[in-house]
């Protein structure tokens, strides 16, 4: 199972990024092999629609699960269309969130925010 998480830096010691669309990197974590890789979020610098672009990036990685503190409306629409489930991270620690996901204690992300009139794009 491939898990994806927005992160601030390319190390396992980094923290979960508070923005999904504007995160600099995504962590890709393979639950079976416990292997991890980092990819750049090519959407981070875009003027608008960053969330859509970022969502496209993780869909292309064939992720099955997304762990994130928040997610915008448009991004959520893309992610749901790709049948990826979205869980809400509980703190800043990357490892804690992976553990919590594995033990089934992370809640599904339910509140999706409405975007920022073309200027944000989380």
């Amino acid at each position, binding site marked *: 199972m491939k898990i994806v998480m927005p992160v601030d830096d390319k190390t396992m010691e980094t923290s979960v990024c508070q923005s999904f669309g504007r995160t600099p990197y995504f962590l890709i974590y393979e639950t079976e092999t416990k292997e991890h890789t980092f990819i750049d979020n090519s959407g981070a610098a875009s003027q608008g629609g960053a969330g*859509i672009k970022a969502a496209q990036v993780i869909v292309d990685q064939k992720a099955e699960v997304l762990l994130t503190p928040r997610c915008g409306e448009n991004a959520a629409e893309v992610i749901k269309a790709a049948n990826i489930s979205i869980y809400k991270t509980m703190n800043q620690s990357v490892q804690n969130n992976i553990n919590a996901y594995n033990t089934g204690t992370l809640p599904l992300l339910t509140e999706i925010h409405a975007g920022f*009139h073309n200027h944000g794009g989380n």
Partner: protein
Amino acid sequence: MEGTKIKIAVLSGKGGTGKTLVAVNLAAIAKNSVYIDCDVEEPNGHLFFKPEQLKRHDISVKIPVVDEKLCTGCRSCVAFCKFNALAYINHKLMVFDEICHSCGGCSLFCPEKALSEREKVIGVVQNGKSEDVRVISGIMNVGETSGVPIIKEILKYANEYQDITVIDCPPGSACTVMESIKDADYCILVAEPTLFGVHNLNMVHDLVTLFNKPYGVVLNKCVQSENPAETYCTEKNINVLGKILFDNELGTINSNGLIAIRQSDKYFDVFNQLLHKVSEEVQHETVVNP
């Protein structure tokens, strides 16, 4: 100013400053003028003018639609769209209407000719008359995110009927405001006498300086005490065109949805002076920067 076509934009850093009060009264006193309400999310100038002989027409933008039978999933369109309005998910192209800027590029670039354009209505233009003022309002549909196409459309009416056009801008300094002042000959900044008012004034002041527009300030809701907005103008050497005192009479006229210059001689004089001041400024500008 016979024969000269001028466009005056009225702006403020936030709503409730008195921007519409100034714009409406200025248009009303100018006679034979055009009033254009660019505050498309919450147009309320027409509530004062109560224009008659209304004509309405829809405004639409072009949004791409995909023919799934022709689409091969090459993603040229996704890569092309600078606004990220497209995503290719699960063998299907998704189009995000409200992100799309209707540039038409994706349809041109699709190698399979799988994209075509459909019209999507985003609001209406309302055109009517109130005594001798032509009143144009743009009203954006709820749920739409960008008023820019509507503002572009209604500004086409500037000077179409008369020589003087007053443009009531949206509050703030976002792209809709930039669109509204782009072709203005003169900008009036309306400011409240508070520290927060100074903050808002500063914002629009930056904007008009950036656009290199001649401008002046109207100080609204003035009371006897200290006026930080006036201090700001003095410090920055900004021309104060006029002061409107805080006054119950004006408040009552306003809250009854009436136009001050049509109700009160006092306000007729206040706005008449303002109009003359602005006309002088504009004339001066055309002499100095023809």
